[in-house]
């Protein structure tokens, strides 16, 4: 799972660099969240703008990061969902669980 990390005052931005998150790479993603939270990061913002496909285990990895963040008194939010990816969150009602921003810029309060 290719991931780029960028530190902002309010968020640690986690940019997923692969077009597809599925049962083949979701465990690696889950571990990545775990490591970041264990290293003391509290506010993860996952940039999904490059992800065009996500399956249920990809949703599961994000959910795992979210629950883990809560355990660490932190949070995990999402940004940049493509329409079909968004549909997967809506069908599973997980859009009600996550804080969702239309883009990273929106989340960090920049004018776009």
């Amino acid at each position, binding site marked *: 799972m290719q991931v780029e990390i960028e530190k902002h005052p309010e968020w640690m931005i986690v940019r997923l660099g692969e077009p597809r998150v*599925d*049962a*083949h790479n979701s465990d690696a993603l889950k571990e990545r969240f775990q490591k970041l939270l264990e290293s003391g990061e509290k506010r993860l913002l996952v940039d999904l703008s490059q992800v065009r496909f996500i*399956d*249920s*285990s990809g*949703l*599961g990895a994000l959910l795992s990061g979210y629950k883990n963040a809560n355990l660490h008194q932190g949070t995990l939010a999402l940004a940049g969902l493509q329409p079909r990816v968004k549909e*997967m969150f809506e*069908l599973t009602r997980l859009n009600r669980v996550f804080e969702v921003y239309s883009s990273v810029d929106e989340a960090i309060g920049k004018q776009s």
Partner: protein
Amino acid sequence: MSDIEVDILVPNQTRYLSLIGSIGEAIGRELDRYQGDREALAYHLNLVLTEALANAIRHAHCADVHKTVRVEIHVDPDCLCIKVHDQGQGFDLKALPEMPPDPCFEHGRGLFLIRCLMDEVEYQRGVDGNVLVMKKRLG
């Protein structure tokens, strides 16, 4: 015999999920007999193939890389049918809840999504193996 028949054998490894998913996506995108949104159909076929294949690989074949999974995609004038075969212990599809799982569970959304996106879903258990049959009406 169906109009179009695609029969695939693939090693029991999650690295092939994207290959099989893309084959389904290509079929959905080119299916000019489908009246609805073909880009949506393409994505949904990619998804249901990915979910069903991942289940066969992990739950039925316990991630044994030496096993093989067989997938069939048949297209008739009014129906697209996907079959994913497995040689595992099987499970009871009817016993799975129809509702999306509670947000506190990380797993258990694969068959829920398949049921959302396909018109008919059935799991047939047999002595020679089992098969998940997923149908989408095209008319």
